């Protein structure tokens, strides 16, 4: 079915129960909002107060999002996403979700101010968080030379020798960006080859300011008040060496942000929210998930975006099925229990 059939969208019968709440505002959350809004579901999107826009807010040029042949700046792309979602009537709230209650027919979402919202369906698109090295001095020296944001902090390392830890696209992107400021950038990588895309590898390998410490991991961060160097350990023979740097940018990947739903939704072995096949359906009826929080593999803006679309369509169908049940059950605002379990069995 392709048309929306929302349950009780106006009048007192709807009470304060919305059709759908979307948690998160990266490419998946905003795409879900565009689709849900165009399906007349009047979505409420809770964007986060300081995390709004998601991971792309800390990037510069996005060259692989189709439709922008010359590339687009990450923050500009996310501003476009937001505008497009708002244009079709998405209500956007720049607050942080602190708690969700996902079982039952009505889902409850609590934000940092204590205010709560209710909806028949919810889309979890909370993305992922930067992975830390897990070293004892990492936290202490964070903001003192240890950084997770090259676009924010590169400026402070003009003419200095710095390191980037990681071997994926984001590590090389950071390394290339940091060459604008630093006199040298050493990429510290656990293996002897890079995971990053060929085009990023070629750019980094050819760059005169970029060096590589292959088969190396960070064993310790040196420094009292600020970073003065790294101890590198060779992953093949265990030998240790010193690298004199004043800054270290950590880009060793991300972990799905599942704190909100832990204990309520099934997770996979990789730590992502488990969904049914190619759908966005989680282990609870009426709860859908999209974007990096369900994706241990691809984790691109465009795959997150596609995943957000899937979630909105799944929600549309779920609510339409509820609507069918409600129309036979006269004024009962919540669906009969069997309609939900029947859907979950699909």
């Amino acid at each position, binding site marked *: 079915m392709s048309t929306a059939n929302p349950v009780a969208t106006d009048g007192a019968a709807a009470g304060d129960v919305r059709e759908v709440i979307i948690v998160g505002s990266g490419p998946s959350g905003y795409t879900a909002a565009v689709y849900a809004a165009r399906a007349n579901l009047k979505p409420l999107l809770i964007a*986060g*107060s*300081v*995390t*709004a*826009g998601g991971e792309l*807010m*800390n990037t510069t040029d996005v060259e692989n999002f189709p439709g922008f042949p010359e590339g687009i700046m*990450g*923050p500009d792309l996310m501003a476009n996403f937001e505008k497009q979602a708002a244009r079709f009537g998405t209500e956007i709230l720049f607050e*942080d979700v602190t708690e969700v209650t996902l079982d039952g027919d009505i889902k409850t979402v609590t934000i*940092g*101010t204590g205010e709560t919202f209710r909806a028949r369906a919810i889309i979890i698109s909370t993305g992922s968080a930067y992975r830390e090295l897990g070293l004892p001095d990492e936290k202490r020296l*964070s*903001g*003192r*030379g240890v*950084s997770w*944001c090259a*676009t*924010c*902090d590169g*400026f*402070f*390392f003009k003419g200095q020798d710095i390191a980037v830890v990681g071997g994926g696209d984001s590590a090389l992107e950071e390394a290339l960006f940091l060459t604008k400021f630093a006199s040298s950038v050493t990429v510290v990588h656990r293996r002897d080859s890079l995971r990053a895309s060929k085009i990023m590898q070629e750019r980094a390998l050819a760059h005169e300011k970029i060096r590589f410490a292959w088969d190396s991991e960070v064993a310790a961060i040196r420094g009292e*008040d*600020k970073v003065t160097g790294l101890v590198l350990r060779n992953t093949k023979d265990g030998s240790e060496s010193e690298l004199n740097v004043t*800054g270290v940018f950590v880009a060793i990947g991300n972990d799905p942000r599942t704190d909100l739903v832990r204990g309520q939704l099934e997770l996979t072995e990789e730590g992502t929210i488990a969904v049914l096949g190619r759908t966005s359906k989680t282990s609870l009826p009426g709860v859908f998930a999209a974007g990096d929080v369900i994706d241990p593999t691809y984790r691109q803006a465009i795959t997150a975006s596609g995943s957000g679309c899937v979630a909105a369509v799944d929600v549309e169908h779920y609510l339409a099925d509820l609507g069918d049940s409600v129309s036979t059950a006269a004024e009962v605002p919540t669906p009969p229990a069997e309609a939900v379990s029947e859907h979950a069995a699909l």
Partner: protein
Amino acid sequence: MSSAKAVTDASFGTDVLTANKPVIVDFWAEWCGPCRMLSPILDDIAAQYSDKVDVVKVNVDENPAIAAQYGITSIPAVYVFQDGKVAATSIGAKPKQVLEQEFAAFLK
């Protein structure tokens, strides 16, 4: 943009170090995405706690001396100054409720 007072290398002494109240200083720059997210939150705190603290901002691009003096290498960096000394620091853009907790001692 923000309504917080812009403090410079030149005015830092008067506006921050010799202020009567605790001063929350937001070290920021135009090109820092998380700084833009944090700015309205600090405006909120400034308005709500105007009798307790002053909130000012230092553009690190235009005022490198102060940023260097306090060893800032990550922004947004929020420092609280009391009696001319650094009394608390918070690195990164954090929600209002989190900052209120971290800086509770100065907001009471």
